[in-house]
């Protein structure tokens, strides 16, 4: 018996990296997924990789009208949601002395405001007893130079899980965070503003700080998210599940 048989799952930031790996795993476990992302081409390519039981909606989580469109599609196609993986995130590197207002706003618009409304607007469709998983980050408890806006935004996400656990407990909806450590995804090279060489160096430096001695694979986060989405974690709510090779744990 598959773990997510017949479940309806929405995944934001679903066109690459952790979101895409999770969408693939969810479908393997029997779910139907609706993935959203800003770039239509990447989203289509992701859907082709997932192969079946996948719907795409182009949109940006920081735009409320895009979220409305996303959930209108979900409502029309499936009528309800069992699992929400609020995973879309942004993070450019900027030291405090050089950070611009645009850098700060972009980070918080996507990671905090976008995630907040991703969850709020899902609630009318949410089935009681469902599971919500928020992508936080190992940086929510670490001091990493250049990552202050990102780390603070991810600490906010971790705390959303606490409040929402209480707000949604009567509906038996569980809310948890997953906090990945450094993961081999395109994001480090494409969205942080680093050059390819810098991204490579950053990855090597992260690996040296990780007790497991390596960075993680998107599939390893997907396995943990699948666990949080399924009944296997039926007594887990309000937690921050670190999947970080030990980076922030020791």
């Amino acid at each position: 018996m598959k773990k997510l048989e017949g479940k309806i799952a929405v995944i934001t930031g679903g066109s690459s990296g952790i979101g895409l790996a999770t969408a693939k795993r969810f479908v393997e476990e029997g779910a139907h997924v609706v993935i959203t992302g800003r770039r239509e081409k990447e989203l289509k390519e992701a859907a082709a990789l997932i192969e079946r039981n996948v719907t795409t909606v182009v949109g940006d989580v920081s735009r409320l009208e895009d979220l409305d469109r996303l959930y209108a599609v979900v409502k029309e196609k499936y009528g309800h949601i069992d699992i929400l993986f609020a995973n879309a995130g942004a993070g450019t590197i900027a030291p405090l002395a050089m950070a611009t207002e645009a850098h700060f706003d972009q980070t918080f618009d996507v990671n905090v405001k976008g995630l907040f409304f991703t969850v709020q607007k899902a609630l009318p469709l949410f089935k009681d007893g469902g599971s919500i998983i928020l992508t936080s980050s190992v940086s929510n408890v670490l001091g990493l130079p250049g990552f202050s806006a990102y780390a603070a935004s991810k600490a906010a996400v971790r705390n959303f899980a606490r409040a929402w656990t209480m707000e949604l407990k009567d509906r038996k909806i569980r809310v948890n965070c997953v906090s990945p450590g450094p993961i081999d995804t395109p994001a480090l090279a494409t969205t942080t503003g680093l050059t390819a060489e810098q991204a490579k160096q950053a990855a090597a430096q992260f690996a040296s700080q990780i007790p497991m001695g390596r960075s993680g694979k998107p599939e390893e986060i997907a396995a943990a998210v699948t666990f949080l989405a399924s009944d296997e974690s039926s007594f887990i709510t309000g937690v921050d599940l670190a999947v970080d090779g030990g980076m922030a744990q020791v």
Partner: protein
Amino acid sequence: MGKLDGKVAVITGGATGIGRAAAKRFIDEGAFVFIFGRRQEALDAAVAALGPNARAVKGSVSDETDLDRLYAAVKAERRTLDIVFANAGAGSQIRLGKITAEHIDETFDTNVKGTIFTVQKALPLMREGGSIILTGSSAGTTGAPAMSAYSASKAAVRNLARTWAEDLKGSGIRVNVLSPGATATELAKEALGEEGQKVFAAMTPLQRMADPAEIAAVAAFLASSDSSFMTASEVAVDGGLAQL
């Protein structure tokens, strides 16, 4: 096909409660399980229920010679070991002001010293890809009346995993802590009574106590490759009790 096919596991405190539920789940997932506990009668009943892929060794985790016998039995029958669930624990309630040296020793001998030697003595048999799971507790991060020894011992357990993740670097063996909250084991139900169970349920955001099978499901996750990028982590399985 189970997610622990062909794996060999040791579960201390395995005759009853969470340990017993984990033994059942591990076996359902394809593992061969050695349970370790102090009471022969409980071990016999557990093995009878668990079937041909379970073995029992009688002993106490606070006695090193008993642990030596446990691992000698594992080595003799299976040669190697993949999963250690160091789950045996002890805890009684005594308020500050009444604490005795005996109470401290009993709690720490089982929960801390017992956990350390359960793991240390397992290592020679363990292989790359192995997983060690330590039973912590929501009490390890919260304060509760009359729980000082137990809470401190479980905070110690949580920290053992941090150190061991570093000590085991390069070995391919992961170590994580599973921290249950209020769990409706037979022992807990008996100790708490109807009223006590209601109190714990009301304190828990999910408004109920855990079924031991729910803790076992998480142990199976931590034992399996589904948690392959997790080490030194603590996974709270407490219905939100210590998370808010």
